[in-house]
Structure formats: structure tokens, C-alpha cells
């Protein structure tokens, strides 16, 4: 996938000017936020569950090696195979080997951000294997050769008219006169088209919301049932998951499941929460003959033991971006890679480097709404600040910014000089702005005055006036004594 994070500013400008996108983004604010609020209000134990979920993940990360080994042993015991991949390239290679061994021509896919992260679809196609996305949102964007703009609602940036146009363009076997003006009709059509694909697939690929060490189980949650049809109909099921998806026990998974769907879509549970352990058993009339798990590192181990370790608690619910004013303004594609919004701003530099993705942790007001809704209590603004510190150390921020802030800090450390300089500058500005009380334009303040008036200062600074009053008071006191 092309990385366009370096051009985040241009991406944002284009996004702000895109009327279709802006209309679609209206759905994010209204829908997700209200639904989450209702679900949270209906569960008094929600905040306590967030604390417990955080603690479970912290404990797991502190013992990740042991839990990974325990998990692997149980998968093998259940008749599954475990593969390990350090990099995206290795993971793709393993996936291709499995598909080739199964003589796969078509593979179906459940919705999986990790497969986006490793650019799996393009790779499979280049190697003569056809991947078919089965989640409706993923299917739609696959038709458009786009990438997801949200980690759980991949097509949130689209309107139904756009979806209709794509379906008409691609589903040429269906009568042109059919009515596709409503979402119901679009869903029905996708259901029919994809039903055939489910049966045609040789391999089904899913991600995993959780991997349970106690039992060697992979858990996926969907509302459509597409992940299930992807993993039980083909002969081979492959689970691709990054190593931090491990949780110790079924009960631990149950705890975190309680905060996952509520934070994501405001549901108590997703329609289908599916726990899979190994291939079909003797006597099973359905299910895959082979069950593979590919455990992927791809930068996670490098986050352990660093100030970014807490990001590994993320369960990919999307609540942060649902509540982010920056995401609401520009949508997900502007972020330029796989993961958008606040979690993308923290995770992306870890995975592709802060030199390419420095804009992401900088384009935040630190309003803190993301952290306030994160079910795993991840301190997202704090970690964005850590990225800014890394950039500062490496001199990656623009020179004008560095010098401007350095100058400000120089004065701020010298109160006498600071007050001398400001006691000259502010009254002048105050005089200039006295008439209207504001400036429509001010040199060096172009970023501000492009869109806003600049309020004029009142005149003499506060410290100037206080100094004067203290001098008078002192004089009075001396005069009296």
C-alpha cells in the first residue's frame, strides 16, 4: 500500500474540500458516539471493566513470551499448525505457501486490518490467487481499489450513491433495470454475490480479535457472519494475528469482550462472537480440514519495554477515532496508511517510522477525548507527545517552528527580559488594534488570520500593571512610614 502520511496536510486539504466525504463523515459523529454512550450508560460496571481489561493486558504483555508458548502448545494439541513471522514479508510468504499447498485459486477473507498492514491482497493477486473480501464494507472498497478509512467501518467515507455506482459497474450479470437506491437492496445484492464466493473458496483467511492461551482458541467478532462463513466452508482456515492479541484465559477474553463491542458500535455483543479451536474433529460434519495460525511480530516486540508499550493494549475498537475532532474533519484516508485516528497516530510511527508519519502525532489538539473513551485506558495523547519528543531530538520538525518555540522558551526562562520585551510590544499592538479590538491580518500570524480575526491585546500587560501597582504601594508604604 502506498504510504501518503508524509503528505498529510495536502491529504487533509483535499478531504476538507470533498463534499461527499464531509457528508459521509456526519454519520460518524452522530451514529457511533450516541450508540456508545447508550451502551455505556446501561452498564454500571463499565468503567471497572475498563480497569480490569487494562490490567489483564498489562499482565499479559509483561509475560508475553510465556503466554505465546502456552498458546502455541494448545493450538498444536488441538490439531492446528502455528507459524511465526518476524516481518510482513515473512507472513506473506507463509500465507502463499499455505495457499499453494492447498492449490488455492480463490480465498475468502474476513475483515482483518492486519492483512491490510501486510498488503496481503495485492501480493496474493500478483501470485495468481484471487482474494475476495466478504465483509460488506471491505467488499465495497475492494471493488473501488481503495483501502479502509476506519478500522471497523471500512466504507464509512462513502455514500450509498457511490456504492450503487460501483455495484452497477462490477455486477454486470445482473439486470440494469434493478433498483439499488436503498441500502437494503445493496446488502441483498452483496449477499447473493458473496454466497457463491464463500463456496468457491479453497482457503479462508481471518484475523483474530483474541488468541486464548489457555485453550489455543482464536476469537473473531462480526455482525454479518462473514467471518464464520469464511472460516468454516473452505478446506483451509488461516488465522493471521499479531503477537499482542494473546490473552491468558477464556474469562480474560470475556472481560475484554464486554468493553469491545460497546466501545465500537454500542452493542452489548457483536451478533457473532466465534471461538475456534483447531480443524474439524472426528465426527464433525463441517469445518475446515486444516487450521493454521500465523503469529506476526512486525514491530510489536520493538514496542515492548518502551514508552510505547501501552499501545499494545489496543483492541481495535475504533472508539478513539469515532470521538476525534480531527478524524471528524478529515476522515481516515488523510492519515495515509492503514491505521487512522488517534490510535493510528500512535501506532503508525512505530510500524513505519516517525520520519514518514510525523504529521500524525502532531495533528492533534490533545483534547483527550480519545483517552477518555478508550476501553483499554491507553494514554494516547501522552504517547503522541512522546513521538513529538523523538522528532524534536532528531530535529525532524520544521525549522521555523523550532526557532520560534526556542525563542519563546529563551524569553520564558528569563522573566525580567520577557516582561521588558512584552511591556513594549503589547501596548503597541494594543494601540494598533484599539479601534476594532481585532486584526484581520497580522504579519507572522498568517496561519491564524487566514481563517480568523486576531483579538487585539488590551494594552499594558498584566505584569506591567502589577509592577506599577506594587511600586505605588511600596512608595505609599514608604511614604507613610
Amino acid at each position, binding site marked *: 500500500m502506498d504510504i501518503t502520511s508524509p503528505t498529510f496536510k495536502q491529504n487533509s486539504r483535499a478531504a476538507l474540500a470533498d463534499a461527499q466525504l464531509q457528508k459521509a463523515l456526519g454519520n460518524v459523529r452522530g451514529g457511533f458516539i450516541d450508540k456508545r454512550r447508550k451502551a455505556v450508560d446501561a452498564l454500571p460496571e463499565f468503567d471497572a471493566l475498563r480497569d480490569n481489561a487494562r490490567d489483564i493486558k498489562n499482565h499479559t504483555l509483561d509475560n508475553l513470551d510465556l503466554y505465546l508458548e502456552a498458546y502455541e502448545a494448545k493450538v498444536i494439541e488441538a490439531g492446528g499448525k502455528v507459524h511465526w513471522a518476524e516481518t510482513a514479508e515473512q507472513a506473506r510468504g507463509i500465507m502463499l505457501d499455505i495457499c499453494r499447498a492447498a492449490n488455492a485459486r480463490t480465498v475468502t477473507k474476513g475483515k482483518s486490518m492486519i492483512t491490510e498492514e501486510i498488503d496481503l491482497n495485492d501480493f496474493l493477486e500478483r501470485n495468481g490467487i484471487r482474494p475476495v473480501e466478504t465483509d460488506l464494507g471491505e467488499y465495497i472498497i475492494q471493488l473501488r481499489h481503495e483501502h479502509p478509512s476506519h478500522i471497523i467501518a471500512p466504507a464509512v467515507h462513502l455514500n450509498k450513491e457511490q456504492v450503487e455506482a460501483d455495484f452497477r459497474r462490477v455486477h454486470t450479470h445482473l439486470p440494469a433495470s434493478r433498483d439499488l437506491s436503498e441500502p437494503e437492496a445493496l446488502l441483498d445484492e452483496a449477499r447473493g454475490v458473496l454466497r457463491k464466493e464463500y463456496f468457491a473458496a479453497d482457503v479462508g483467511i481471518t484475523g483474530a480479535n483474541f488468541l486464548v492461551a489457555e485453550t489455543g482458541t482464536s476469537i473473531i467478532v462480526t455482525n454479518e457472519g462473514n467471518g464464520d462463513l469464511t472460516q468454516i466452508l473452505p478446506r483451509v482456515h488461516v488465522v493471521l494475528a499479531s503477537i499482542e492479541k494473546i490473552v491468558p484465559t477464556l474469562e480474560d477474553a470475556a472481560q475484554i469482550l464486554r468493553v469491545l463491542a460497546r466501545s465500537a458500535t454500542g452493542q452489548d455483543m457483536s451478533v457473532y462472537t466465534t471461538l475456534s479451536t483447531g480443524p474439524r474433529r472426528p465426527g464433525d460434519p463441517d469445518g475446515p480440514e486444516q487450521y493454521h495460525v500465523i503469529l506476526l511480530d512486525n514491530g510489536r516486540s520493538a514496542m515492548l519495554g518502551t514508552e510505547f508499550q501501552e499501545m499494545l493494549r489496543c483492541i481495535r475498537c475504533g472508539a478513539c477515532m469515532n470521538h476525534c*475532532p480531527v478524524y471528524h*474533519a478529515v476522515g481516515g484516508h488523510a492519515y495515509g496508511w492503514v491505521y487512522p485516528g488517534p490510535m493510528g497516530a500512535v501506532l503508525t510511527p512505530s510500524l513505519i517510522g516517525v520520519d514518514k508519519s510525523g504529521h500524525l502525532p502532531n495533528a492533534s489538539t490533545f483534547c483527550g477525548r480519545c483517552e477518555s473513551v478508550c476501553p483499554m485506558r491507553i494514554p494516547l495523547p501522552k504517547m503522541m507527545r512522546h513521538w*513529538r519528543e523523538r522528532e524534536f531530538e532528531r530535529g525532524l520538525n520544521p525549522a521555523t517552528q523550532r526557532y520560534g518555540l526556542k525563542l*519563546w522558551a529563551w524569553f520564558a*526562562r528569563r522573566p525580567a527580559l520577557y516582561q521588558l520585551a512584552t511591556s513594549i510590544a503589547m501596548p503597541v499592538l494594543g494601540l494598533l488594534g484599539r479601534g476594532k479590538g481585532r486584526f484581520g491580518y497580522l504579519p507572522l500570524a498568517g496561519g491564524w488570520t487566514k481563517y480568523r480575526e*486576531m483579538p487585539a491585546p488590551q494594552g499594558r500587560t498584566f505584569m506591567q500593571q502589577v*509592577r506599577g501597582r506594587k511600586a505605588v504601594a511600596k512608595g505609599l508604604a514608604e511614604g507613610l512610614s
Partner: protein
Amino acid sequence: MTSTPRVGLFVTCLVDLFRPTVGFAAIKLIEDTGCSVDVPMAQTCCGQPAYNSGDRADARAIAENTIRAFEDYDYVVAPSGSCAGMLKKHYPGLFKDDPQWQARAIAFSAKVHELISFLVDVRGATGVSARLADTVTYHDSCSGLRELGIQAQPRQLIASIEGVKFVEMQDPDVCCGFGGTFCVKYPDISNAIVEKKTENIDAAGANTLLAGDLGCLMNMAGKLKRQGSKVEVRHVAEVLAGMTDTPPIAGRG
């Protein structure tokens, strides 16, 4: 603790430079609760611009200056949620590697309060004696709200103003798009965010917009005036202290 608590006023750089009225309003409000207020002269900035830009060294140096100037007071009060948040929540972390300074920072931070929270939560104020015949609305600045829990207190004090009518805007707790250097680093996005805010302010039907942070207020006032809005913008302290003779932020009309 003496019977008359000694408060050091941390005026904040924006109030100092742009709107001293807010500082004098803060002094009056604090004195009205029976405290004495002093303004240490060796203050400049809380260091947040450096801190949020990743410059921990400068932030730490500024913090040392601030702590030295204020640590002998009983309380440190700032008319800004974001500056108070910086002093209270972030200063100790700047000294993680220095146990002595960190102890000083922790002791200092324990004394820090945002102005409205100080009046209500610490001094127990339940109302003010100001009068204002006006319809007002209130924007919850992010740091004050999410770092310091300030939400009910300003509304409580505003409600006590004689003659005032309070209307709640939609999404009062959603960011205004200021974000310190964010608004000049990403002006297009900042503008999109503040436009949603001014839409909500207009729809609320208030004549006056209040908030507790001058950065947010200057941002929203600047946008409202550019849009030709008649809404007037003031810091909540001015109104609570009855100091509304001065022109509002960004002027009238």
C-alpha cells in the same frame, strides 16, 4: 496553614499579554473567598508550548523557574484549565530522573488549582454577587474538563449571577480546535473544527460566550468575528467578578 490562605496567582501568558482584566478579575474572586493574593514577579509561561512540541529540556527549565517562584504559597491558582493542568498534572513527570526536584514538583503540584475549581471545590463558594442581564452559554475547554474535572463548577457559579439566563449549546465539551500550536500548524483542520463550534454557538441562541481558557476564547472569538457574528466573548472570570465594562475579546460588532 495560616487563617488567611496565601494564594500565588499564576496569571498565564495569554492573560498577561492579551487580557489583564481576567487576572484582576481572578484576584477579586479569590480575595472574595477570604484569601490574600500575591503575584510573584518571576513568572512567565507554564512551559506547555515547549512541552507539547517535544522540547522537554526547555519545559523543565521553565518549570523549575515556576516552582521556585510559587512553592512557598499555600495555593497556586491559574485562570486557565490548560495551564493549571500543565502545572498540576505534567510538572512532576518532567523531573522523573531527579528525586529532589521531583519531590518539590509534587509538593508544588498539590497546591495548584484552576480558578473556578479553586473557588468552588477548595473555598466552597456557592455563588457570586455579580449581576448581568444577558443570555450566556459556556464552552468546556478540554484540559479543564478532562484533566481537572471542571464542568459543573462554572455552571453553578454562572447560575448564581443575578439576571443571567444560561443556555447549553450542543456539544459544549467538544474541542474548539485551538490546541495551542495546532491551530497554526494545521490551520485548515483547526478551522474546520472551530466552524462546527461556532455553528453550535450560534444555534444556542446566546448573546455571550464564556469559557475558562483564553486560548480557546481567542480562537472562538476570532472565528465568530470573521463570520460577522454579534456574539460577544468573555472569560468566565470577568463576568463572575462583574468586570464587564471592558470591550469583549476581539471587540464588539
